């Protein structure tokens, strides 16, 4: 029995979340093959070959795979599908966009965002913003799955020595073409892999106040996140959003500043190891999940926190 993991990469390096997905593949059991599809992506292919537990890397290097377009990747993956019982990708914007398209072509009901594995056909997944954990058993011949990274400890990026096999491209679907992207410049760790996150909400009042959080973040080596309200108000870009419909995070320390703690926000961060809440309203629901709560005006507390960390 073999498992195909669709890797996420930037043509040079494999994204951290793919290591969590390979860990999930390991828990299902079987030979793990990793597909690296991109343009000029042989360096990423070599990186994939070094990942612990990977038996084989399939490298598809062609212009139509340059931007991860699902319409182009689907025929490629369908051409490989016969050899696999499980097809896995991370539950990221890339994986969520791609895997259901493949599943429909295979007449398979996909399983999104798995957080637990009981057996090769039985999986746990959160529903209702993580307020119910559902265990489902699939009767489909193949399982098409996206994996929630925070639920599986990553495998080591080094230690393996898999063979890299070049595979042929399947051509451009001519349905969708890439125009441009505005990718936020990363001056800090990525939200989904950061050890510490400090997030701001509507209480921040303006994007001009976010540098306050950034200063604290830099002292802690932390990433900066936000609530939906802060993104909707234009304080910060959309990729900062933590929550049910944004990013799911589980750092060792999550500091929520001026965030009330709506169900949809909690869905994205309540598996953090330690949660700190700073909010001026002592009734704010965020305090119900916080290990340490400070009832205070953030405009006073955050600069104080910065000073205390400098000492």
């Amino acid at each position: 029995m073999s498992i195909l993991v669709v890797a996420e990469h930037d043509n040079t390096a494999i994204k951290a979340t793919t290591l969590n997905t390979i860990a999930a593949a390991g828990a299902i059991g079987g030979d793990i093959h990793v597909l690296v599809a991109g343009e000029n992506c042989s360096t990423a292919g070599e990186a994939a070959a070094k990942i612990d537990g990977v038996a084989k890397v399939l490298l598809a290097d062609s212009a139509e795979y340059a931007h991860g377009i699902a319409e182009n990747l689907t025929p490629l993956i369908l051409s490989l599908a016969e050899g696999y019982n499980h097809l896995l990708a991370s539950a990221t914007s890339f994986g969520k966009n791609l895997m259901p398209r493949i599943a429909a072509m295979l007449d398979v009901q996909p399983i999104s965002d798995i957080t637990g594995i009981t057996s090769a056909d039985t999986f746990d997944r959160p529903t209702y913003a993580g307020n119910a954990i559902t265990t489902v058993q699939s009767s489909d011949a193949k399982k098409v799955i996206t994996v929630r990274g925070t639920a599986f400890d990553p495998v080591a990026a080094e230690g393996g020595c898999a063979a890299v096999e070049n595979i042929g491209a399947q051509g451009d679907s001519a349905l969708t073409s890439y125009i441009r992207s505005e990718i936020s410049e990363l001056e800090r760790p990525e939200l989904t892999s950061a050890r510490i996150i400090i997030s701001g909400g509507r209480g921040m009042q303006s994007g001009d106040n976010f540098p306050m959080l950034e200063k604290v973040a830099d002292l802690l080596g932390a990433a900066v996140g936000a609530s939906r309200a802060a993104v909707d108000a234009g304080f910060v870009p959309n990729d900062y959003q933590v929550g049910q419909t944004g990013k799911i995070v589980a750092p060792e320390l999550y500091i929520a500043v001026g965030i009330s703690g709506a169900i949809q926000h909690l869905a994205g961060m309540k598996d953090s190891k330690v949660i700190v809440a700073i909010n001026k309203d002592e009734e704010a629901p965020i305090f119900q999940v916080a290990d340490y709560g400070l009832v205070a005006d953030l405009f006073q507390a955050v600069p104080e926190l910065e000073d205390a960390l400098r000492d």
Partner: protein
Amino acid sequence: MKVLVPVKRVIDYNVKIRVKADETGVETANVKMSMNPFDEISVEEAVRLQEAGTATEIVTVSVGPQQCQETIRTALAMGADRGILIQTDDEVQPLAVAKLLKAVVDKEKPELVILGKQAIDDDCNQTGQMLAALLGWSQATFASKLEINGEFANVTREIDGGLETVKVTMPCIVTTDLRLNEPRYASLPNIMKAKKKPIDQMTPADLGVDIAPRLTTLKVVEPQKREAGVRVENIEQLVDKLKNEAKVI
């Protein structure tokens, strides 16, 4: 251009759901139901396209029990022209929803289908992509901006790293993200008008679609509860706790 907007009836986003004691599912009796919030964004976008003269007719469709009529009426009150209810009391998983929607597309021949990116009950985030696959159409998922220019559309997508703009061939599937627009509230006169708009009713069998579930739910449980911790008096105490008690900084 005809636009099709699928809308799902879900437990209202403000409700704190309760898992049933027998672990078979979530309590739905006497619980407030609403249109999936992402689908409100879809309806709003379709109505704006109609106001701009790009869309000529908006058809809204819902799959589920008879009460989905209410969800359809909400879409009609926001500005959709007519509704289709695919009535069933059985569980319909996203693959089956996509097959039913494909059957509707084959009949209605819209040039654009706008779905929500995710239903807030099953949190699947699958149906739009699967419908696109079954139709062989392009898919612009997680849209925060939509511009239609004849045979193409430029769509800006919310992705993990930021924003991405793609050019898709029409007809196409769009799934909506939170920043696409702010849905309107239906006005009272429009709610009254919506009562007279037609709703067609059919069953999955009428459309020749097998909706048998592929996933069996073995159990539904509550997640591990997080205990509330302690209040600290000031920043000094907080930093001390984080350093010496939690040992995370």
